[in-house]
């Protein structure tokens, strides 16, 4: 019984912090708690959120991927370019995801085969992918697509925006993969102790690479949504996203040392960042003060999480 309570708080401490923030915002802004705004927040969160799912795999293995923002830009730009050239939509979708996948694979292979620390490899990739994007686009956004493509970012299914459906779908899939498949269990194990995993006869390198592939893939899915939503793919897309994405994962309780964390945590972490940004807009806090407030909220939320944990 006692054990359960503690565990609950440990796993859901951040949820409680999240709810407190929501309650405060609802109190301060009448708009905040409307259905419309909730849908908005989740839709805005989806782009970061999807990437955060991929990042969760990477961080669970004890790695990090700084290149997701650039991969988003590259796949978005190539997607836009292909659309503009009139390629059929299914092919565009497949190839865009292939771009993300390819970048992720490059990261994964260099990290595992070359045995270079993920920070350096993904930093390199961040620069490379951004450079290729700029070369490809010559620095200008690409726009003007067939209207069907807009469905991905702007469509609705039974009144629910498509990005939200994709986001929730990916969270669900990731949850199943992390808890119910070899890949998932190995992801945790590698982050916990890679040597043990290797000695257990598991191809740790392969599964570790997969985490980066997944991160690349989710970045390109986010790119699809973003490109569709903005109706353009630009070389400036995704700059600095890596920090927000990593923050979502870490605020969600996944340890940067690997081996510990959950997809639900990431989900809440991503929503938290979305809600904070949304809330500050709604309250119309001046942009300089926003930075200060945001900083304190992030620290405060995680601190609350920690305090509850220790209370037991």
């Amino acid at each position, binding site marked *: 019984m006692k054990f359960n309570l503690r565990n609950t708080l440990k796993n859901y401490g951040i949820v409680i912090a999240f709810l407190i923030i929501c309650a405060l915002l609802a109190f301060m*802004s009448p*708009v905040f708690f*409307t259905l*419309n*705004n909730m849908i*908005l927040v989740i839709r*805005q969160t989806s*782009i970061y959120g999807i990437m955060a799912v991929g990042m969760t795999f990477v961080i669970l293995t004890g790695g990090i991927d700084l290149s997701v923002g650039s991969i988003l830009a590259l796949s978005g730009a190539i997607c836009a370019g292909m659309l503009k050239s009139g390629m059929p939509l299914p092919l565009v979708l497949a190839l865009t995801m292939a771009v993300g996948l390819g970048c992720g694979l490059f990261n994964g292979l260099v990290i595992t085969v070359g045995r270079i620390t993920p920070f350096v490899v993904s930093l390199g990739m961040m620069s490379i992918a951004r450079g290729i994007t*700029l070369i490809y686009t*010559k*620095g*200008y*956004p690409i*726009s*003007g697509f067939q209207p069907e493509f807009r469905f991905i970012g*702007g469509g609705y299914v039974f009144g629910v925006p498509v990005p939200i459906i994709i986001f929730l779908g990916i969270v669900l899939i990731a949850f199943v993969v992390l808890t119910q498949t070899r890949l998932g269990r190995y992801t945790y194990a590698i982050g916990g102790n890679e040597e043990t995993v290797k000695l257990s006869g598991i191809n740790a390198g392969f599964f570790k690479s997969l985490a980066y592939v997944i991160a690349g893939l989710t970045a390109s899915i986010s790119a699809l949504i*973003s490109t569709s*939503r*903005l*109706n*353009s793919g*630009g*070389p*400036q*897309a995704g*700059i600095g996203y890596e920090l927000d994405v990593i923050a979502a994962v870490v605020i969600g309780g996944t340890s940067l040392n690997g081996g510990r964390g959950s997809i639900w945590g990431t989900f809440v972490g991503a929503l938290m960042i979305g809600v904070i*940004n*949304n809330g500050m*807009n*709604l309250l*119309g806090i*001046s*942009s*300089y003060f*926003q*930075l200060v407030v945001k900083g304190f909220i992030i620290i405060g939320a995680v601190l609350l999480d920690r305090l509850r944990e220790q209370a037991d």
Partner: protein
Amino acid sequence: KQIVIGMTVPGLQFPFFVTMKAEADAAAAKLGVKLLFIDAENSSDKQMAAIESFVAQKVDGILISPMTTDSLVPAIEAAVKAGIPVATVDRKANTNVVLIHVGADNVEGGRAAARYIVDKLKNKGGVIELEGTPGSSAAVDRKKGFDEVMKKSGVKILVSQTAEFDRAKGQSVMENLMQVYPKFDAVFGANDEMIIGAIEAMSGANIDLKTKVTIGFDATTDALSYMAEGKLGATIDQFPGKQAGQALQALFDKIKNKKNPAKNVTYINPLPVTK
């Protein structure tokens, strides 16, 4: 011997500077000048390093759009002392040693945007303002000019929030703001990226764009095509290409023909471009 000119701008993440660079490249090609280019990646320290390495390479002239009015002054003065003529574009540097400054005043641009809105709204109604990256000089100056005119007018600034010069952020921020201020009449985006994001947000919310006054900043290709489609009202043009072209010409005349420009400060008046 071919003339070599070093050029550095605050950051190619802003389409404004991409345009400036592209047109400078074209102008240089026409003059037969070799243009070395360094992106300052939004850092004064990096831009200073860029100038230093131009000096080390003994270029014939330097074309710079400084990060801020003051932070590059020491580097510029050092370059001039080393005998290299320097021209500034867009932002002025706080020194009198430059050969020529060709600029468009961001504060004036902000004013122009505000006047456009006041005019269109017949001096009443409310406007949503999207600011640029907090603390960047373009953001601060444009906001300053805009707010100054607005304050004296009958149009009210409903809310002013930053969207960091970013299209995706412009969209999200606009989505959020529209809920609290559903009765806005106009939107000002301190650059075209943000106003395009905001327009996408409005389209997404099924708002008739014809009923809203919108104005961006920079006159990027995308903004012009949005205007052509009737989605965007106007954008402020600071003619980055023209600025760079004029400055380059002045440098060329100085290096090649030892000729000083007639005026050492030239302002290109920022104007709202409408369709």
